[in-house]
């Protein structure tokens, strides 16, 4: 009996140890990046990485910010409209697919969903050509449109599943009152699904902000390049400065990380509902 208790205690101890070790490994990258970003060149070269910076040198941040400012603003200009509009446009389609039974409903849904499976980079050449031929090379609009288009599948999928959970009685009541279809969407369905809609917009924001491929393929000058492309240019700089590189990476993740942390609870709730798992 004693052995069993001891065994259980040992197992419990090992479990805790294992989790703690993995947790430390998981924390190291961010912690190390933060440390490095606050050091100077010399401290990194001669002091090693483990040393906690005695003074917080903010030079790397000021230097990086002055270079990266333009890219940061570009990212905002591209990501915010793209996130908002991709969700709004998808609402229209999801409403029809979720709440109306018609011939072709399933087919159209599959048509949208299959877009999720495509690795985006296979389309860089044709999208590049398309944007160039429309005269939209190196513009914000090209990237906004592309991100909206490629965001359709996931937005329609999530919204459709969410809209389907709203009881039909409300709809019928509104229709009796003389409400139009669009009115039902705007006044009933979306308000009720608001948490999911907002969460999805946040999710789109994170996804689009963090993506690299369209900024890379569709732009060539600083004027319209998003931040993920911008920090790569830092990396290639002649004087490879680890502190600049880390500061740049941290600056680029601040916004989406905040959005993610705020929304992550509702995100998982929405995900659970959307994939049909009750809870």
């Amino acid at each position: 009996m004693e052995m069993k208790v001891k065994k259980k205690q040992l197992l419990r101890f090992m479990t805790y140890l294992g989790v703690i070790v993995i947790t430390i490994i998981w924390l190291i990258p961010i912690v190390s990046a933060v440390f490095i970003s606050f050091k100077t060149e010399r401290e990194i070269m001669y002091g090693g990485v483990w040393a906690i910076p005695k003074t917080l040198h903010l030079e790397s941040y000021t230097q990086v910010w002055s270079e990266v400012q333009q890219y940061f603003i570009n990212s905002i200009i591209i990501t915010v409209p793209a996130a908002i509009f991709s969700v709004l446009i998808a609402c229209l389609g999801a409403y029809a697919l979720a709440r109306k039974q018609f011939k072709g409903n399933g087919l159209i849904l599959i048509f949208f969903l299959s877009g999720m499976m495509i690795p985006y980079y296979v389309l860089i050449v044709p999208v590049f050509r398309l944007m160039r031929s429309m005269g939209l090379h190196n513009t914000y609009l090209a990237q906004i449109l592309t991100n909206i288009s490629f965001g359709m599948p996931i937005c329609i999928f999530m919204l459709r599943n969410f809209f389907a959970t709203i009881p039909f009685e409300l709809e019928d009541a509104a229709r009796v009152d003389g409400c139009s279809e669009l009115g039902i969407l705007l006044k009933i369905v979306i308000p009720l699904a608001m948490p999911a809609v907002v969460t999805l917009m946040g999710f789109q924001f994170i996804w689009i902000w963090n993506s690299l491929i369209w900024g890379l393929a569709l732009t060539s000058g600083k004027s319209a390049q998003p931040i993920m492309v911008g920090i790569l240019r830092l990396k290639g700089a002649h004087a490879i400065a680890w502190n600049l590189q880390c500061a740049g990476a941290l600056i680029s993740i601040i916004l989406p990380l905040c959005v993610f942390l705020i929304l992550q609870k509702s995100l998982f709730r929405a995900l659970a509902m959307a994939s049909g798992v009750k809870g």
Partner: protein
Amino acid sequence: MQRTRLIKVLPFLLLPLLVYVAIEVFTIVDMFHLSFQEWKSGVFHYIGLSWYKEIFQDRYVRIATLNTVKWTSISVVWAIIVPFGIALLLNQGLKGENFFKAVFIIPQGIAYTAAGLMWATIYSPDVGILNITLKKLGLGNFARPWLGDPNVAIYCLIFVKIWIRTGFYMMVYLTGLQALPKEVLDAARVDGANAWHRLFHMIIPMMKMIFVIVITLDFIESFKTFDIVFATTRGGPGASTEVLGTRIYKAAFQHWELGYSCAIATVLFLTTMVITAVYLHILMKGKKY
């Protein structure tokens, strides 16, 4: 649910379809079209199936495909074991559960590109935390130029991706675990079923759908690999970290063989479509839409 005719819902579907088709779908057709052409002196010329013949002789496309498969397999195998294990542990109500959850979930909000840069710092042979720690612990023999060693570079990059995604899958498993009917499990425990039995014969089968979802998501995610490699090794020492994404990109924007890039892309696209079709078929069997 209201029964209606397609024509009546069209106004709602028009805009999403337009946006979707105008770019994502139209370009697929264009990609296919361009794969039979060569770009010379700013103009496209038809060259039939030449590019496709070259694909099968191209050593680096082969390596990239193998690497992509390698990446996907390792990633998926990890995704069904480790995050699940962590979710199981966290589900037992350890102290500080929220803290652990936060630690694993935070990387998910970090872009692959930025993570690549941060990890490049860690993997650096002189200044990187990994080698310095190994040397301090007396394990200097293990220290190596991680991203410069063709034998390990790709695994280093795969771990970056794992670092980012594990938290997400963990949360998915956790949600699933918490949705399991507790009474059934308690009844089994009372009946004398030990932990392993409960795990393998009850919990896992009940979570089957979740595992399918995780595998699907991870599979798609792994094929989309591009950002991490591009931000760090760009194909790595030799061709050891080349993946299909980097190969297609290089063929297009570095070698300026736009047609060839489209050809590789077409083959990959068709393969993905076949896999999707098979997968959806299996999934749809027994589900009413």
